[in-house]
């Protein structure tokens, strides 16, 4: 049993996001927040109270929101553009491509409650495409924290990185999976568990479920390596190639369509060290109605599903 999982209380990473944003803003008055009537869903209340004039609410207008963010960057500010991930990405895709990425502005796009965090609200409010959509855009860094500690570090790093960054932050409760002394390294995988039989590569909200699968496999005498991928782009090629070389295969685990992390890993593997893979995530379908926990289990994005996928790879070896 992974020690960090001993601490079972669940956290809403939006708390860590806003706490860090306020802390950064205290020391850097270039930092502003841009929202689309999303103060509540972004949990930005504390920031708004502390810096009312630095919270720019453009109303329900995502194209304007991202464009205004780029303009604020041009004007010397460091904008954190925060909105529900589904609307931020789908509605402002060209602004993300042109105003943020192609223009290489120092601006941070914070996609709130992505994946299926808004499960019952239906596919229009699910953001299961965002990782696949954004990872193809040149010049954009994509960070997907797995817990509060990583969220804090990711926000702090993005504030200091002179380029466009997308950070995925969810309301879904997650346990802390990283140690308290965790240090975020952009572009680097985090080895949460050593192992040489099979590799589990997970990102964001479901890293804890991959660790639980590793526990289950350990009970069967299988040593599973668990890599947490806080950075989806650029992806850690070296860590993935070692995994392909040293274990029987790779299972990717994500709260997204498997063209996201799964696709990103596959694209590295086939070019550098072909190996068998299994994708755990949302298959090629719009999700039905249900709570996020129900949906994750429905799609087998849980310990049992990940362990089963790992056993398939072990059987091939």
């Amino acid at each position, binding site marked *: 049993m992974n020690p960090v999982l001993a601490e079972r209380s669940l956290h809403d990473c939006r708390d860590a996001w806003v706490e860090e944003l306020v802390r950064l803003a205290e020391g850097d008055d270039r930092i502003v927040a841009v929202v689309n009537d999303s103060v509540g869903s972004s949990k930005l209340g504390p920031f708004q109270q502390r810096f009312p004039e630095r919270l720019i609410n453009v109303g329900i207008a995502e194209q304007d929101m991202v464009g205004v963010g780029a303009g604020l960057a041009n004007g010397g500010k460091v904008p954190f553009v925060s909105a529900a991930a589904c609307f931020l990405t789908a509605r402002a895709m060209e602004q993300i491509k042109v105003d943020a990425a192609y223009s290489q502005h120092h601006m941070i796009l914070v996609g709130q409650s992505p994946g299926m965090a808004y499960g019952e609200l239906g596919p229009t409010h699910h953001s299961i495409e965002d990782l696949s959509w954004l990872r193809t855009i040149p010049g954009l860094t994509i960070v997907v924290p797995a817990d509060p500690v990583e969220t804090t570090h990711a926000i702090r790093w993005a504030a200091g990185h002179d380029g466009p960054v997308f950070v995925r932050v969810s309301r879904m409760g997650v346990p802390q999976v990283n140690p308290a002394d965790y240090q975020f390294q952009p572009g680097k995988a985090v080895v949460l568990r050593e192992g040489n039989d099979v590799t589990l590569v997970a990102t964001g909200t479901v890293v804890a479920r991959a660790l639980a699968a590793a526990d289950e496999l350990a009970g069967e005498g299988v040593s599973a390596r668990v890599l947490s991928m806080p950075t989806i782009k650029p992806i850690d090629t070296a860590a993935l190639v070692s995994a392909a070389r040293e274990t029987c295969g790779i299972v990717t685990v994500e709260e997204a369509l498997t063209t996201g992390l799964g696709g990103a890993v596959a694209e590295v593997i086939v070019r550098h060290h072909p190996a068998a893979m299994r994708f755990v995530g949302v298959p090629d379908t719009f999700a039905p*109605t249900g709570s996020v926990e129900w949906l994750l289990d429905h799609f087998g994005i849980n310990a049992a599903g990940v362990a089963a996928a790992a056993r398939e790879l072990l059987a091939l070896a």
Partner: protein
Amino acid sequence: MTIEEDLVPALDPNAVPSDPFVVLGRVPDDATEAQAVAHLKEAARLVRRRDIQMVHAAGLGHVGGEFSVVDILVTLYLQAMNMTPDHLGDPDRDRFILSKGHAAAALYTTLAIAGFLPPEQLFTFMRPLSQLNGHPARTKISAVEASTGPLGHGLPIAVGTAVAGKLDASPRRTFVVVGDGELQEGSNWEALMTAANHRLAHLCVVVDRNRLQQGAAVADTNDLEPLGDKLRSFGMEVVDVNGHDHQALLAAFRAVPAPSGRPTAIIAHTIKGYPISFMSDNVGWHHKVPSSEQVAQAMSELEAS
């Protein structure tokens, strides 16, 4: 793509307090204006009762925006629109699109009371595999014309439907309800420009003008005023009505198509959370879920109303 939503959801009649729910159906053709208004008033009362119970049971919903739009919905479905459950296939029937899809519970309940949806299905609201998720989907409910939820989609779709009607010289009218905060989306202004230039007289845009959006008043977020001037300058025939006055709404809907040949924009002045005392005009109730006590109080206030 596998359409998992086709699976029959598990119905649980105990999900919400079983409440007398009559499928009232349309206002009888021979009804007097007074009888029609009484019929609509009763329908609105039943819809609000069921709506708040559904939201309470699901633990999710948008009661404020649902209660502000209920009177508009029942007036359209039970009287103003030429649309009945047994003639859904008629190309010349009227069309309705709820662009502010977050008020789905009000639409589902109205569809049920109008006979477009089996009342039992309301019990599945937001349940696993339910056809009734938090926002209406055309692939899940036959009477729903457009899948909405992301704001700013319904109006362009309504314009397309109206253009098709005009190409076919069909008498059908297309009604679309947008939220006031929703009008901050530029896609709506693109669509209004298109509607006016195509002289879509059979298009009627109803603005649920409750003056509040998700986190604050519209005026404190990105003000729309002067809204009438904006809509007129975009070529619309603008009408102001009390969005809770069934008689006034009936008159406004009857006036479509306008003699001017312009598309109609009805600014329906409403109160978010109407008529519940503790919800009315209170932004806190955009998507707050009522407690059992609050449901009970709302119920008694609805009786009194």
